[in-house]
C-alpha cells in the first residue's frame, strides 16, 4: 500500500520542530508500524537524507520503549504499543500524522524520541520494597491471597511507556504512578512502607512537572496494558491515609 506520512522533525531539544511530509510506497499490511518507519528510513538513507529518530527496542510490546502519537492518539488508538500496531489497521492511500509524546516533563530529544527519565526518578523516590539481597525469608513463609495477588499483578504489568502522560490533557503521570502504588500495596511484603511510598512518589511526581489528575480518563483509554482508572482511586485512598502517618516526603 501507499501512504502519506506527516512526521514531526526536530533536530534537537532546543531546535524548533515542524511537520514534514513524506510519500511512502511498498508498505505491506503484515508490517508493524515501526517496520513501516524502518522502510521510510531506508528510503531516506538512500536519498542521503537523515532518517527519522524514534525509540524502540523489544518490538514485542513489553519493554515500553516505543511510543509515538499517531493521528492524535498515543500509540495509535488500539490500546496496544506502537510496535504491536500493524499496518493492516490502515487503508491504502491513508494520510498518517506521527508526533512524539507531548508533555513538559518529557522533553523531545530528537524527532520522535523523548526523555522519560522522570519515571525512573518517581520509582527512586519510593517505588520499591526495601529488602537487602541475601536476607529474604523463605518464599512460602508469607502466603499472598490470590485475589490481591492478581490485582497486584494486573498493575505490575505497566511497561512505563508514557502513553498515559501523552494522552492526558494535564500531562499527568498518575496512571503510571498509581499502577506502581497498587502493585506494591496489594502484597503483604509491601505493607511496611506502604504509606511512606505513596507520599514520596506523589511528591516526586509533582516535582517533575507532571500535572494533576482531574479524572478525565484519556490515560486508561490508551494504556496498552489496560491499567484501570480504579488504580488512581486506590492511590488517592492510600494518599489520604498517608496524611495521617508521619513519614515520607
Amino acid at each position, binding site marked *: 500500500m501507499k501512504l502519506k506520512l506527516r512526521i514531526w522533525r526536530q533536530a*534537537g531539544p532546543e531546535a524548533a520542530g515542524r511537520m514534514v511530509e513524506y510519500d511512502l510506497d511498498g508498505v*505491506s499490511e*503484515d*508490517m*508493524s508500524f515501526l*517496520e513501516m518507519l*524502518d522502510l521510510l528510513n531506508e528510503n*531516506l*538513507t538512500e536519498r*542521503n537524507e*537523515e*532518517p527519522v*529518530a524514534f*525509540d524502540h*527496542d*523489544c*518490538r*514485542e*510490546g*513489553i*519493554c*515500553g*520503549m516505543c511510543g509515538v502519537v499517531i493521528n492524535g492518539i498515543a500509540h495509535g488508538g488500539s490500546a*496496544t504499543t506502537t510496535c*504491536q500496531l*500493524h499496518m493492516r489497521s490502515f487503508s491504502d492511500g491513508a494520510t498518517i500524522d506521527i508526533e512524539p509524546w507531548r508533555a513538559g516533563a518529557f522533553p523531545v*530529544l*530528537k524527532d520522535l524520541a523523548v526523555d522519560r*527519565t522522570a*519515571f*525512573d526518578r518517581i*520509582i*527512586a*523516590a519510593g*517505588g*520499591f*520494597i526495601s*529488602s*537487602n*539481597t*541475601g536476607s*529474604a*525469608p*523463605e*518464599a*512460602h513463609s508469607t*502466603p*499472598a*491471597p*490470590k485475589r490481591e*495477588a492478581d490485582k497486584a*499483578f494486573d498493575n*505490575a*504489568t505497566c*511497561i*512505563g511507556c508514557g502513553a498515559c502522560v501523552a494522552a492526558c490533557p494535564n500531562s499527568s503521570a498518575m496512571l503510571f504512578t498509581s499502577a506502581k502504588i497498587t*502493585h*506494591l500495596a496489594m*502484597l503483604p*511484603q509491601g505493607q511496611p512502607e506502604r504509606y511512606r511510598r505513596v507520599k514520596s512518589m506523589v511528591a516526586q511526581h509533582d516535582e517533575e512537572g507532571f500535572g494533576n489528575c482531574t479524572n478525565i480518563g484519556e490515560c486508561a483509554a490508551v494504556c496498552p496494558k489496560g491499567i484501570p482508572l480504579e488504580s488512581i482511586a486506590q492511590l488517592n485512598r492510600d494518599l489520604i491515609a498517608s496524611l495521617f502517618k508521619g513519614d515520607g516526603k
Partner: protein
Amino acid sequence: MTDTITNPEITGEANQFWSVGEEIADAKAPQGIDIDKVWKTRQFQARLVNPANRRKLSVIIVGTGLAGGAAAATLGEAGYNVLNFCYQDSPRRAHSIAAQGGINAAKNYRNDNDSTFRLFYDTVKGGDYRARETNVYRLAEVSANIIDQCVAQGVPFAREYGGLLDTRSFGGVQVQRTFYARGQTGQQLLIGAYQQLERQVAAGTVKMYTRHEMVELIVVDGRARGIVTRNMINGKVETWTADAVVLATGGYGNVFFLSTNAMGCNVTATWRAHRKGAYFGNPCYTQIHPTCIPVHGETQSKLTLMSESLRNDGRIWVPKDAADCTKDPRQIPEEARDYYLERIYPAFGNLVPRDIASRQAKNMCDEGRGVGPAVAEVDHDGNERLVRRGVYLDFSDAINRLGQKAVENKYGNLFDMYQQITGENPYEVPMRIYPAVHYTMGGLWVDYDLQSSITGLYVTGEANFSDHGANRLGASALMQGLADGYFVLPNTINDYLADAPFDKLPEDHPAVAEARDSAQQRIDKLLSIQGTRSVDSYHKELGHIMWEYCGMERTEEGLKKAIGLIQNLREDYWSNVRVTGKNEDFNQALERAGRVADFMELGELMCVDALHRRESCGGHFRAESQTPEGEALRHDDEFLYVAAWEWGGEGSKPVLHREPLIYKAIELKQRSYK
C-alpha cells in the same frame, strides 16, 4: 553408531583458519572436594573487604538486565561505588524484560522428587555435556534463594488459591520447577531488580548512566580499569575508570539480523573486550527456539517468540501427506496428522528440549510437510526453491479438555499477541510456528569467579559462556542472570577488590588516551566512508549468511564458504557503507553502524568455531556427525572441551585455547529423550 567425519585437511592442529594455543583451566573452583562443598568453600576462601573500605572502591557495571541490574543493586547495597550503564533510556528496558516463560528453581514445592542435584543433572544433560560442572552445580544451589529474594521484593509470581506459589513444567525436564508470572516473567523479575537498583540510585551508591553505549574497554598493565562510552544523545565520547569492570551486556543473537532478541542487542561490549585480550568461549553455540511466529516477508525486522510454556498444552503436528499442506488445518482429520514429537519421543513428547524440537520442525519442512505460505529460498547450491516454513501448534485438544476460559487464563496474552501479529485467531485455527534464533550460549570465557581472561574484568549473565553448554533448557537463563547478579558476583568480586584501591588513573594516561582515541577514530571512520549502502542492508546480508551456513545445521563446506562471504562483505562495508548525520548528535544510524561492524568480526569467529567442532551437540548440528537415526552425535573423545578463542590481531588467525571439561559428579551419556 557411525562416525562420518571426512575431510582430513582440517583435522590437523593448525590450518588456514585458526592456530592452537596452550590449554587453559579454571583455577578458581576448589579442587578435590565433593561438588556440593565447592561453592561454600570458595566463598569461605575468598577474601573480604571491610565495609568502611568499600566506600573507597568503585565498580563499573555495563548492563542493567537481570545480570547487571541485580549486581549493581547488590554491590551498591554492600557499599561500593557503582557506575551503571545501559544503552536504553531506562534501566527497566533491558532485554531481560522480554522473557516470557519462567524461571527454574529447585524448591521441590511439588513434591515430585526435585532437588539441587536433579536441576544440576538436567541442566548439564540439557547442555549436552559441554558446560562446566562446578558452575552448573552452583547455579542449581542458589536457585532457591532467587525465588525467596524476588518474592521479598514484591515480584508477583503466579499463586494458587491457598496463596502459595504455583509452578509449571518446561521443555527438557519431567518435574514442575518453573516459577512464572503469567507470560511476563522476565518483565516482573526485571522490574524487581530495577526497583532495587533505583533504591540504590536514591541512596547514592549507584550512579546510573542511561543512553550511554560502551564502545571500548580500558586495560592498564593487563588489568581492566575502565570503559569508553558514547553518549547517545549528544555523541560525547567519554572515559570512566574504576577498580573493576563488569560486563553484563547480554547475548549476540542479533548477528543473525532476524532473531527474537530486542533490536538493540549487540556484541560490541564483549567484542571490544575480546579484542583487548578476553577469550571468547564457544561462540558458535546458538540456541534456536522452536516456537516462534514464522517469517512473513522481506521487510520484517524481528521474530516474535511464543513462550515455550505453550508446549505444555499445545500439540505440534504437520500433515502426514504433503498434499494436505495447503488445506485448512481444521479439515484435516486426526488420522491424517503426524504428531511427530509425540511419535518419535514418547517419553517427553512435545516437551523435548529446544534443539530437538527445532531440528525436527526443520526436518518436517525440508521433507515438504511444512505449512503456511510457501517462501522462496536459495539452497546451498544456489538453486531457488519454494518451501513452507511452519508447523502447527494446536490447542483444540486443550480447549476441549479444559475449556476455552481455562486456556485463556493460562495463555491469553500470548494468544492475543499472536493474533495481533498474524491477524489469525489461534483459538479457532492452530498457530503456526517455526524455529528462530533466540539465545547465545557462547560469550566471554570466565573462571568460577566469573572473571574473564583479563584480570579485573568480570562477565555475568548471557554475556558469559559459562553455564549452559551447547544448549540451554527453558527457564534457565533468567536463573543464571539472577544467580550471577544477586549471589555469585557480589561474593567473588570481593576477592579481587581486596587488593584495591588501585592507582588512580589520570585522564591522559596512555592506556586511557589510547582507548578513547581508538573509539573516536572508529566513529570518524564510519562517518567518513559516505558510501552507497545502508547499515541495515549489510546487517541483513550478514544475517542471511549466518542463518544459512551457521544456523540450525552446518557443514564443513558451508562454513568455509560463509567465512569467505563474510570477509568479502566486511571489506565492502568498510568502503561502501553510508552512515548519515554526524557524531555530535542523536544518531541512530551511527549507533547501528558500530554494532554491525562488530557483528561482522564476530560472525567470522562463529563460523571458525563451528568449523573446528566436528561434532554435533546441542543447538550445534554438524551434518557430518549424526547417528543412523539422524540424531546429533557427540564426540567426547575429541571435543570434551570449551573452545576459548583468543583474538589473534587484525588480519591474523584466532588462537584456540581448550579448557578440558572434567565430569566427576555426573557420568557422560549420549543424550536421549526417547
